[in-house]
C-alpha cells in the first residue's frame, strides 16, 4: 500500500501542469491531428475498486494515476511542462512534440529531440518512461 501511495504522490506531481485530458483520436475538431483537450485537472489521482472478488481480494482498492485516456504520439497536445534534460526514469503521460518513433529489437521507442522515451503498459495505462538511448 505504501508503494501505491508513494507512486501517486510522485505521479501526481508529474502530471500537474502537463496534461489536460485528451481524446486520442485527433479527429475531434480536426485541428491538425491534435486532440481537443478536455480539462479534468482535479482528477490527477484516483482510487478505484478491484473488479473481482476472488483475485487479489485482500487489495480491494487500487490506487492509480489517471490520465486514464488513450494517447498516441501523433495525436497528442503539446505538453506544457518543460521536458528539457528529462531524467532517466521520469514517467510522462504525454510526449513532447516532434518525436520520431524508432523500433529497436521489435519494440517501440520515441526519440524526442535526443531524449528517449519508451512507451510502456503500466497496468493497462500507456506511460512514457525516459530511458537511455537504446542499443
Amino acid at each position, binding site marked *: 500500500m505504501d508503494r501505491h501511495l508513494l507512486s501517486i504522490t510522485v505521479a501526481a506531481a508529474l502530471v500537474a501542469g502537463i496534461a489536460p485530458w485528451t481524446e486520442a483520436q485527433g479527429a475531434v475538431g480536426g485541428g491538425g491531428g491534435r486532440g481537443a483537450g478536455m480539462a479534468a485537472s482535479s482528477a490527477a489521482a484516483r482510487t478505484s475498486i478491484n473488479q473481482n472478488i476472488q483475485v487479489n481480494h485482500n487489495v480491494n482498492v487500487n490506487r492509480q494515476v489517471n490520465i486514464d485516456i488513450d494517447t498516441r504520439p501523433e495525436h497528442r497536445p503539446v505538453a506544457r511542462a518543460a521536458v528539457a534534460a528529462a531524467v532517466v526514469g521520469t514517467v510522462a503521460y504525454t510526449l513532447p512534440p516532434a518525436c520520431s518513433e524508432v523500433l529497436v529489437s521489435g*519494440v517501440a521507442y520515441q526519440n524526442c529531440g535526443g531524449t528517449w522515451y519508451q512507451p510502456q503498459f503500466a497496468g493497462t495505462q500507456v506511460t512514457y518512461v525516459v530511458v537511455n538511448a537504446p542499443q
Partner: protein
Amino acid sequence: MQANLMLKRTLLAAGMAGCALASPAQQVTPAVAPEATAALERMGAHLRTLKAFEVRAATTRDELLDSGQKVQFGGSVDLKVRRPNRLRADISSERKQRQLFYDGKTVTLYGPRVNYYAVVQAPATLGELAEMLGTKYGIETPLADLFLWGTDKARPGDIKGATYLGPEKVDGTPCDQYAFRQDGVDWQVWIQKGKAPLPRKLVITSTSEPSQLQYTSVLRWRSVSQLDNNRAFSFAPPPGARRIVMQTSDGKVEPVAKK
C-alpha cells in the same frame, strides 16, 4: 419465606422473559445462511460445466477523486472463455479500449486506439493467468470470478456473511438475490432461477475504505458456437500496431522475449 418465594418467582419470570427474548434472537438468520452458500455452490458447479462461454457485461465503476468526491464511470466487457486456457476480453469505455488475448502460451494486451500492444509469457491455466496478471503486472482480468467460481481458486471459506435477500428480476429474468461478506469486500449476486443458475448481476462493494466504492456488472450470456476455433483468442497485430513493453508491478520492465 413469603418474600423469598416472591423473589424466586420474580427471578423465574425474569428468567422466562429472558428466554422469551433470547428465543427470537436465536431464530435470526445466522451470519452465514446455508441456503445462500448452497446457491453459490450450485452456481459454481453450473459454471464449471460450461467448457466455453461468452458473456457481455454492462459495467459501472466507482472512483474516488482526490477531492474526496465519488464518481462513477460506465463501460462494457465482452468476455470469451474456453477452459482450460483460452480467454479474450474486450474492455471498452468512451475513454479507453483494451483487449486481452490469452492463447494458452502468451497473453497480449492491445490498445486499439493507441495501436500499441505488449506480449508476455502466460501460465497454463485461466486461474493462474488471472493471478499472474494481477500480482505481476497490476492488470485486472475482467469478470475473472466467472471462471474461478467452482474451481479451487474460489475461496468460499473466506465468506463471513451470507444472506438470501429474495427474488428480483435482472433484465426481465427472474433471479434470486444473495449478499455475501468477506474481509474488505461485501458483494451481491443475482442468480438466474431455473435449471441454469447463472450469475446475471454482480455488485462488489469495497469495505476497506470509507467511501465504499462499488463495481457493478449486469451480465448477458451468449451462445458459444464460435468459440471452437482459436481465432478469437489469438492476436494478429493490425497495420501500424507497435509492440511496446509491459511494466511489472514494481515499475520495472523485463527484457522482451521473442514471441
